[in-house]
């Protein structure tokens, strides 16, 4: 019985969510408290497991048994190795902090908070399912559930049209990726014979490379959707319509990282020989493209949450690129540090937004460094980690990725370095405009320091943002079995990343000064307009793909219906029957000669059949 304790990771949030929604939907405070307690409880459980508490392997629950031997039955099981448990630490840790932060952030909100906290609990359950799953089917269930909870939470303020649309967009875009994922799961079952991670090892050697590539790329489609890679990245910026703690938990730290986690789990289970050349290049290129595009688009965003969203996209691109370079270790390291500092940045942004009376435009903020010093300090810690200043956690993980890129393929190394420069530029821009100079609007002018429920998580995350990169912490906490942090090495990656750091900071300082300007000096030219409009990719999808399908697809279907089905099949058959009937009616036309003719033809046919076709002696 005690070995089934890991099932509590899943069941506790699920039960709490059910109770919240069914029993306490009129008592938001009780719901909030229950939810937060469950998050803290799962975090404590996770810490206990990581400290070496052994309870044995959990039971496997056979969901759909198969009658014949040799076929995998569909079962639900948990895997509790280092990769899973340390990832659970990230999930439950950030989850607990976000729950606590939400208590402060959502206070005074007019919407139904029980729904919000129930949604958060469902999310915790779904994410735990993905992390702890021992086969691809269970992963897929968690995958879909995570998309569903994301839909619930993004659309929490569903009275706003933009929020409802954003929730739909997120879900549908994810669905497109999930289609490829499902095909990938079926291919895995066909090619490897099993979908359980533990049984996949060592089978990749005897399989045709084309099949392996197809399988891996289909599975990668799921990651493209969930981790918002190009071309399915369009949902993430719109997902900022949800409450900021949701953005922090789901769209920064955990859900979007699920794609990377799944890919690394596959690399560990199938072995890196399953990831063929073509597949790796595809994955790495998609990651690189996402990183570059997102960084470019972030440079001209005015909404603080949008900047952070694009930076998340960009960092996810880094992680996927690392997976493509077969550096799963570096990818997970970056995922882990990114989770901490991105959650910090989002929660900090949330605190800023609340304290500026729900103002999100950075050009309407300013001078916040003087008015809310502690919050701004935490935010800056996160920024320093993101732009990879030496000594902060982000520096170590980004170095690891750049090392791996340099060893495998220098092209990606230089792309990574370029994106690092862009990252530095836009984050410095954000900080200069939002925190320095004078307040540009009344909201910023009246800002006060954030409350304790919001500050404490910020401080905790700030500490993690600083220390989580160092070897003595990272070796225990990075979700990768046998992870060992590289020491501090001087070499080409170090010089290049220092160079891009300096380049970015100097460029930002030159353009934006010390935040004294009131409008963006770079805005107005066509490139920056294009970047603001997200390089028109959204417009292309909306008008081109969706509008095209709806309009032209509808026209085609209407044509098919009117012309083909009604015209050819229905009316055509009627016409044909009528004509045939008329034709046959000529045979009986009352004319003697006609009858004689038909009789003559009949004689000829009859004689032909009798004399020539029936074999006779």
């Amino acid at each position, binding site marked *: 019985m005690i070995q089934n304790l890991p099932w509590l990771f899943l069941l506790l949030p699920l039960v709490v969510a059910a109770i919240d929604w069914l029993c306490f939907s009129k008592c938001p405070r009780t719901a909030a408290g229950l939810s937060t307690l469950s998050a803290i409880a799962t975090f404590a459980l996770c810490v206990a497991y990581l400290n070496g508490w052994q309870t044995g392997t959990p039971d496997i629950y056979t969901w759909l048994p198969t009658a014949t031997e040799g076929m995998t039955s569909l079962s639900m099981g948990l895997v509790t190795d280092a990769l899973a448990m340390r990832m659970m630490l990230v999930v439950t840790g950030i989850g607990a902090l976000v729950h606590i932060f939400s208590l402060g952030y959502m206070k005074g909100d007019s919407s139904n908070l029980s729904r919000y906290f129930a949604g958060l609990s469902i999310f915790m359950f779904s994410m735990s399912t993905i992390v702890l799953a021992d086969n691809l089917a269970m992963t897929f269930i968690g995958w879909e559930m995570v998309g569903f909870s994301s839909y619930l939470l993004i659309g929490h303020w569903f009275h706003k049209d933009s929020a409802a649309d954003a929730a739909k967009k997120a879900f549908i875009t994810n669905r497109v990726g999930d289609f490829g994922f499902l095909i990938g799961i079926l291919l895995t079952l066909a090619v490897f014979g099993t979908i359980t991670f533990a049984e996949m090892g060592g089978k990749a050697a005897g399989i045709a490379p084309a099949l392996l590539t197809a399988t891996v790329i289909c599975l990668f489609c799921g990651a493209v959707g969930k981790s918002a890679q190009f071309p399915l990245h369009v949902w993430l910026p719109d997902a900022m319509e949800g409450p900021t703690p949701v953005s922090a938990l789901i769209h920064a730290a955990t859900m979007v990282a699920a794609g990377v986690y799944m890919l690394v789990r596959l690399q560990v289970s199938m072995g890196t020989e399953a990831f063929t050349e073509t597949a790796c290049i595809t994955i790495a290129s998609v990651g690189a493209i996402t990183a570059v595009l997102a960084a470019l688009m972030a440079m001209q965003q005015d909404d603080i949450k949008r900047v952070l969203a694009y930076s998340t996209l960009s960092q996810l691109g880094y992680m996927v690129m690392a997976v493509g370079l077969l550096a799963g270790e570096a990818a997970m390291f970056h995922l882990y540090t990114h989770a901490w500092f991105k959650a910090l940045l989002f929660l900090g942004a949330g605190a800023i937004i609340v304290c500026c009376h729900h103002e999100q435009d950075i050009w309407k903020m300013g001078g916040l460094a003087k008015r809310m010093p502690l919050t701004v300090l935490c935010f800056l810690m996160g920024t320093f980690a993101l732009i990879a200043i030496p000594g902060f956690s982000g520096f170590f993980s980004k170095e690891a990725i750049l090392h791996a890129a340099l060893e495998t393929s220098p092209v990606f190394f230089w792309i990574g370095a370029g994106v690092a420069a862009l990252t530095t530029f836009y984050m410095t821009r954000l900080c200069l405009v939002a925190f320095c100079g004078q307040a540009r609007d009344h909201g910023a002018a009246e800002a006060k320091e954030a409350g304790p429920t919001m500050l404490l998580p910020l401080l905790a995350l700030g500490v993690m943002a600083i220390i989580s990169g160092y070897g003595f912490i990272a070796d225990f906490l990075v979700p990768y079995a046998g992870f060992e942090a590289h020491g501090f090495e001087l070499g080409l990656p170090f010089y290049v990343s220092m160079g891009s750091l300096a380049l970015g900071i100097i460029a930002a300082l030159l353009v934006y000064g010390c935040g004294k300007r009131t409008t963006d000096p770079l805005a107005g030219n066509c490139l920056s307009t294009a970047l603001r409009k997200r390089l028109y990719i959204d417009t292309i999808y909306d008008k081109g793909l969706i509008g095209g399908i709806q309009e032209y697809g509808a026209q085609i279907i209407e044509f098919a219906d009117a012309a083909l089905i009604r015209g050819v099949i229905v009316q055509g058959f009627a016409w044909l029957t009528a004509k045939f009937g008329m034709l046959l009616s000529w045979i009986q036309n009352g004319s003697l000669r006609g009858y004689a003719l038909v009789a003559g033809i009949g004689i000829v046919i009859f004689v032909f059949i009798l004399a*020539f076709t029936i074999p006779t002696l």
Partner: protein
Amino acid sequence: MESAISSILFYVFAAAAVLCAFGVVAFRNPVSSAMNMALCFGFTAAVYFGMGAQFLGIVQLIVYAGAILVLFLFIIMMLDIKAEEHARKSFPLACIAVIIAGIFAGFVTKVAISLPGATVGECPAIVLCESLGDLAPGSIAQKAATEGLAPYGSAMPELSPAAAAKALGADEATAAAATAFPDTKLLGQSLFTKYNIPFVILSFALLAGTVGAVALGRKLRKD
């Protein structure tokens, strides 16, 4: 020598009969058609004579050309039927009819040629039976095979009529009475012994025909 002349005569009469048949179809005046038909029947009778079926040849002339044709002419004259108008629009129909006729003639030709032995003059029945390995017992074919009689088309000398009558199973008296043209007598033998009953029934058919013609030809009295 004789057989060569009789072959040539057959071809001549056959060609003439075919030409007259064309005339029946082609002439617009029904009287012309009737005349052509008379000639056709006449040449057919000539062919019968050439085949050795003298009785049937005479019957052809008497009944067909002499009775049926005269009846036709009588009706044509009585109803005073004029020549047919030459209608242009029946040309496609004429083409189709010609094609049908041609196809039918082709079928007959093919069947005729494919009968085993037909192109060289042997009896197809005997040839077939021989190839099948049995001849119907009591049949003339068997007799011919066993007694060494010459089947049709062979070059053996002809039997005298008496011997031929005996070969066909006639008794002595009839065989003695067989003359140079035994055809009628032999036909009569077959007709009145083996086919007696159908012969009687045929007379009933003729009676029915007579009664029917009278009944149909009556003028209905208007009361």
